[in-house]
């Protein structure tokens, strides 16, 4: 039986005296999608950076596809990183940006892979347009193409809905659904409960570095979950 895509046990990260992440444990398998909510400073981004192998845990263990974190290049090759910052080069075209990423990940045919990723995201019509000329929503699609061009096992998205209008957010949700259904594991850090709850299989509310609440499917309905979220967030504040 293959190992879980992500397995974290008592994961802790401190910065000086402050515990940003305090004993988080979770298991996610292919096709799982975790929506991670919480007030600012709850430790969501730090947890995401730990899962991405960009930070070393102070204690506890985590692994991606059975490889212990932080793990170096071997683990980073399995991760697709996404945030509300596009991480793109605005003067370059969408195609050049995605090809550049493909080359960094050692993808065998970067041109073909970039073409396929842009096609999947419905951004092929804009492939030869410089990123700085694209709308925010289209830039975010190119950014997702950049993040998935190497077909990662797990996609880590840090507030990907920020700055998108309702139509852009809906399009992004459609892309995430597509990724989840095709077998990728997703972790989405967001304040957008509506979009995230509609596609997640797991939902967690973080508070002071811990999971104050972790739900697996069936996730409570939006109204109920919003009330829970407010209650826990107010309590944290």
């Amino acid at each position: 039986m293959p190992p879980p895509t992500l397995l974290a046990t008592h994961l802790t990260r401190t910065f000086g005296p402050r515990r940003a992440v305090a004993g988080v444990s979770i298991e996610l398998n292919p096709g799982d999608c975790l929506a991670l909510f919480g007030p600012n400073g709850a430790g969501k981004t730090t947890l995401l950076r730990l899962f991405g192998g960009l930070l070393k845990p102070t204690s506890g263990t985590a692994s991606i596809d059975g490889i212990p974190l932080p793990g170096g290049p071997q683990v980073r090759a399995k991760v697709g990183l996404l945030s509300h910052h596009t991480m793109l080069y605005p003067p370059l075209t969408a195609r050049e940006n995605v090809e550049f990423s493909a080359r960094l990940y050692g993808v065998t045919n970067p041109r073909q892979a970039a073409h396929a990723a842009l096609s999947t995201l419905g951004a092929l019509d804009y492939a030869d347009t410089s990123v700085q000329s694209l709308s925010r929503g289209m830039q975010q699609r190119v950014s997702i193409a950049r993040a998935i061009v190497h077909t990662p096992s797990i996609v880590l998205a840090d507030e990907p809905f920020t700055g998108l209008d309702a139509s852009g957010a809906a399009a992004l949700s459609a892309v995430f659904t597509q990724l989840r259904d095709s077998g990728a594991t997703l972790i989405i850090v967001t304040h957008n409960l509506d979009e995230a709850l509609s596609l997640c299989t797991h939902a967690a509310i973080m508070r002071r570095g811990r999971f104050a609440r972790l739900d697996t499917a069936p996730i409570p309905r939006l109204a109920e979950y919003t009330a829970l979220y407010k209650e826990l967030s107010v309590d944290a504040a």
Partner: protein
Amino acid sequence: MPHNISAPPPEQYALSRPTYTPPGVLRSALIIARKDIQVELRTRSTIFSALTFAVLALAISFFAWDPTAVGPTDLAPGVLWVIFTFSGLLSLHRSFGGEQPTRAADALIAAPIEQEGVFLGKALANLVFIAAIQIVTVPAAALLYNVSMGPIALPLAAIVLAAAIGLVAVGTLFSAMAVTTRLAELLLPLLALPFFVPIVICAAQATSKLLAGRPAADVNGYLRLLVTFDIVAVVVCTLTYPSLIEQ
């Protein structure tokens, strides 16, 4: 913009994902250098600002120059190396600074490559930019100050290149260090200039001797010193960069 999403090709994104071999240090350095040069060719912002500075500085020093008080071969080396130093700082700042607004550097950190490759790629692109500035500035200085650089072209090119490698290695590291601070443009010269001093002194002395008509063998000592500095700077800065990124 349309928001319809096409169906994913199942063979492209499936559970049985392909395994790729990420590029090694040198290959990733070349990929990053190529990308930086490609970005610069689109914007021309680094080269344009550095060249504007270089040409203006040359013109100002020329018009402020009293040829009866100082000979051209005494003045030109100092002017050239002041220009190389400060125009170099301009381009070095943009090396990482240009990636800040979209946090593109985060994607480089997240990529499955050794971070030494990122440093070498950035440094290589910076070397190309600084060399381009030097290629324009040296003939312009020769023209303005009416000094013949033809006979000393080869040893002068060796000195200029050796000094540029040292400036770029140190400058790229400090550019990465300063970029995340609020006073990056102030901090970079403050950090880098003390380390530039030995390189610039050596290079200016060697240039002065060459322009004065001394034989090329007279500058061998300076060249050896610059090459030694280059080796130490490139090795130390390349090995330091990954731990800097981890911070």
